[in-house]
């Protein structure tokens, strides 16, 4: 299993540009999450999904959109990038229940710089 994979690893955007951060997991997990980590801080939840076709907002959703058309993929869309969105973005997933339920497994992160 590759676990949770994210692309790209690093990206520079100009103010006002848009982009999609990709996230894929091969563990057949129902739940998927997007977090952002600002310098010197812990992670904050942007959006999450409990299954294909179902998404919901987290703590800091403004400026982002998500979709979940398959169990494996959970892309994060940035529209009209702003300097405040400079951050490291992590995707995570977890199984529905059972052994090790509630444990989130993280991808390697995408570092985004908006100039």
């Amino acid at each position, binding site marked *: 299993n590759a676990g949770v994979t994210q692309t790209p690893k690093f990206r520079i955007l100009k103010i006002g540009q848009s982009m999609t951060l990709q996230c894929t997991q091969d563990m057949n997990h129902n*739940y998927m999450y997007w*977090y952002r980590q600002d310098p*010197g801080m*812990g992670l904050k939840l942007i959006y999450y999904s409990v299954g294909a076709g179902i998404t919901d907002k987290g*703590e800091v959703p403004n400026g982002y959109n998500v979709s979940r058309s398959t169990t494996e993929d959970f892309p994060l869309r940035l529209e009209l990038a702003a300097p405040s969105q400079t951050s490291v973005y992590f995707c995570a997933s977890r199984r529905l229940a059972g052994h090790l339920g509630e444990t989130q497994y993280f991808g390697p*992160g995408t570092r985004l710089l908006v100039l």
Partner: protein
Amino acid sequence: AQTVTQSQPEMSVQEAETVTLSCTYDTSENNYYLFWYKQPPSRQMILVIRQEAYKQQNATENRFSVNFQKAAKSFSLKISDSQLGDTAMYFCAFTLTGANNLFFGTGTRLTVIP
């Protein structure tokens, strides 16, 4: 609201020694999970150890163990026989059972000195 506090921004330990990282949390709920994640310079978030609140026994994973004090809402991480590869940021995290938000502390930067 759920909060997680890590009061030690930075710590250091000599190789082969033992170090304890502190974490406190605040919740009015009774059913929850606590985690310690390690973030090395590669930025990958790696699960170190987890604890179910309903279990009185402290979790252990090889050189890593926790001291879970539910009444005091404290969840410290002990690293024994510290190794150079333990150098990383360590984040304490909390989630309510069945919830979808994992609340993180601000992290403790641990440096293992040769």
